[in-house]
């Protein structure tokens, strides 16, 4: 049960229950739809990239478990103000953390709060069947960033 409290930390329960940046902003110019075939979770990520290539706004809509909703919610908070390269770096770090390749997750350039939050989400690596719940939003975001046309992602 102590392990479970590591996974279902306060911040995850909070974001899972009351997700931030939930909705479809009209100015979004990068979007992708993500789907987890195993459990049926779905997510739409909406990014608004400004003229300088920075993420001015990040939002999402979707249905899923506490882990996937919290992950999406916390991700949108982390993305604001980031460049495309920053966002891709975050995605790679998150992926590495969740799949147990901590050594490859280059967290040195991240601010402490972001790194902490990513570690919390990465608690899911103790539950291999749930890793995709945490990474779905990130895969979807990465795909959205790399294309101007709407994308579909299946994990």
């Amino acid at each position: 049960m102590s392990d479970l409290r590591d996974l279902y930390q306060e911040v995850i329960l909070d974001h899972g229950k009351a997700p931030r940046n939930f909705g479809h902003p009209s100015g979004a110019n990068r979007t992708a739809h993500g789907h987890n075939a195993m459990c049926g979770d779905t997510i739409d990520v909406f990014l608004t990239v400004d003229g300088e290539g920075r993420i001015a706004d990040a939002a999402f809509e979707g249905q899923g478990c506490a882990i996937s909703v919290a992950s999406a919610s916390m991700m949108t908070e982390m993305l604001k103000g980031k460049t495309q390269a920053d966002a891709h770096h975050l995605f790679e770090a998150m992926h590495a953390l969740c799949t147990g390749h901590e050594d490859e997750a280059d967290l040195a350039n991240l601010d402490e709060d972001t790194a902490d939050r990513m570690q919390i989400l990465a608690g899911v690596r103790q539950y291999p069947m749930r890793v995709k719940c945490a990474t779905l939003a990130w895969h979807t975001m990465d795909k959205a960033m790399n294309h101007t046309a709407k994308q579909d992602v299946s994990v």
Partner: protein
Amino acid sequence: MTLATVDAIHRARRINGFDVERVRGDFPILARKVHGKPLVYLDSAASAQKPRAVIEAMSRFYEEDYANIHRGVHFLSQRSTDAFETARAKVARFINAAKADEIIFTRNATESINLVAQSWGRKNLGPGDEIVLTELEHHANIVPWQMLRAEKGFEIKVAPIDDTGQIQLDDMAKLIGPRTRLVAVSHMSNALGTILPVREIVRMARAQGALILIDGCQAAVHKQIDVQALDADFYAFSGHKLYGPSGIGVLYGKYALLEAMPPYQGGGDMIDRVTFARTTFKEPPHRFEAGTPAIAEAIGLAAAIDYLAELGQSFIADHEDDVLAYATERLAAIDGLTIHGTAAEKGAILSFTIAGAHAHDVATILDQQGVAVRAGHHCAHPLMDRLGVTATARASFALYSTRAEADALTDAIGAVKRIFKL
């Protein structure tokens, strides 16, 4: 309770023919721990655990009698062929088929249904024809028909369920008409536990001259099946849900229908005579069993059937009904918990959601306490859409399930509520 009364209860149970504690001893895996807790296995509807009798029958076969079948004159090939064909006869008796040759061995129920679609369906369905399914079908009884429809251009009609998860015969009657060639329905829903009124559905199909395929994957485990009394044309199920091994399934078909059906896979074992100009095929069931089959698995399935017969299927059904009723009562008393599937006729399946906790989070938290349940869409997306949920948690009970396990499930759900502060 005094020791004398406890003893009397035990004796009564044995006279009744079913002692669940003794039965649990037959399943080696039930003794193991998961995350340091005793295993509470409530996922038998996905696949059942195996009694020692099945495991040993298969290893004995490999150690003493194994060879390929239908091909050799040597001693072991004879032994192996006999055991395989004896298994077929046993399956026939198990569902009261008129003869062993009405039993086709497949890999699983999915393959059994695909066989009907690819052989009977490909030959008999075309534009203007209709088939009728229900809203609660497993993907195994939806997708093979959609794939064939894309090629053959017939229509698929879908009978709706009511709020209890049952099919209304009036709705069914509206859909089955003169264009209906096949009605393909589950006998028991894997996601809700609903037992469908298949006898009445068969009668409706008959009245319109349509054939009927019954997906008996779940029902064959919980009920005594009599395909002749049901008057089913096809009946499909999987060995692994029936306490047998994975890799073996069954398609029952009325012999006259099977005789008129073309093969759907070609190869060894299914031919009569091959020349490059022309090949003739064996009679059913061999026509539909191309290549080396799952030999040891057929023998394992036969051992599972023997095991069920020894325990008594009606005692098993009574026991499961008791555990289901008890678990339903306990879960229904939990605040914020919704049970999906409340039909009067139900098998030992309990699907539920908890307000404020997604089914996957529920299943992860239950698992940490040793309680194995399935969470997800149960291979029934259309049904989930109908229920308005993306996923449910499902506890399913088997002959080895106990009231104490229903208590463990209830306690584990308490932990979900504590963690999620519900």
